[in-house]
């Protein structure tokens, strides 16, 4: 759905802060998001793969994408038609990107047991990038962020500043947090506070 940004408000109003040579934080507002639930190995799963043109692998923590290079230096999300799929559970993906995901999957939804729920307002997106990005995150993120264990295009759900988030390591020195909208201000406060020592 096209978002009427004149009437819509993002949880953080598109705020940004920092210094890209150290660490930069910013909200990327109004990015679409869908929770996809589908059982791997079923015809429904095959239908989803065909519809998205993206061979999903049911490996929790794996991010797959098509037409979606990470571009942290620009304000907008990847080029047209991009799909990014974050595998959050053995039958669960978070889909985002510039493609019309609802439309891509509409026929699969009609014939198969799967669930596609628009959660664009459920979460917002905060990018954290720069050489100190990982250090800033580790003030609150308790999971292993070492490159061997959380390489580029890994994702994970976990607890950040006592709130649930999705974390995506999208490219070098760049991470994207997907906080729930109700917690976005809290997380922003925590992140900017943690960044103080690095700026």
């Amino acid at each position, binding site marked *: 759905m096209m978002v009427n940004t004149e009437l819509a408000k993002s949880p953080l109003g598109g705020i940004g802060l920092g210094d890209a040579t150290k660490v930069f934080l910013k909200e990327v507002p109004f990015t679409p998001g869908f929770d996809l639930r589908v059982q791997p190995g079923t015809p429904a799963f095959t239908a989803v793969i065909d519809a998205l043109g993206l061979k999903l692998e049911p490996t*929790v*923590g794996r991010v797959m994408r098509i037409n979606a290079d990470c571009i942290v230096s620009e304000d907008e999300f990847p080029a047209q038609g991009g799909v990014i799929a974050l595998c*959050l*559970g*053995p039958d*669960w993906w978070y889909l985002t990107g510039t493609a019309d995901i609802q439309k891509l999957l509409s026929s699969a939804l009609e014939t198969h047991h799967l669930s596609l729920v628009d959660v664009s307002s459920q979460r917002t997106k905060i990018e954290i990038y720069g050489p100190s990005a990982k250090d800033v995150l580790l003030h609150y993120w*308790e*999971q292993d962020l070492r490159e061997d264990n959380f390489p580029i295009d890994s994702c*994970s*759900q*976990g*607890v950040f500043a006592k709130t*649930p988030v999705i974390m995506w390591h999208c490219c070098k020195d760049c991470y994207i947090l997907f906080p729930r909208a109700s917690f976005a201000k809290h997380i922003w406060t925590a992140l900017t506070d943690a960044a103080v020592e690095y700026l």
Partner: protein
Amino acid sequence: MLNIPCPYCGPRDETEFHYGAQAHVAYPESPKDLTDEQWAKFVFIKSNPKGWLAERWVHNSGCRRWFNVWRNTATHEFGPSYKPFTQQPKSPA
């Protein structure tokens, strides 16, 4: 801080999980056919021996999946974890 082996996500900190007590206690086929005593046993009584116990945990801050895992209740050592409705691995004892 336990390090709990989620069969889907790998080892994670205890804070990401909730505990679900003894594993392999199925909801009775027909509760109405149970005596009060049998029903109360199902509802209220769970095994908690000293030593190895197959338990349920849910990775609720992560993949949200329930799973079973062997844990030594005396030493906090973990044995293998396994998905529901899959073959139970042997007790590490």
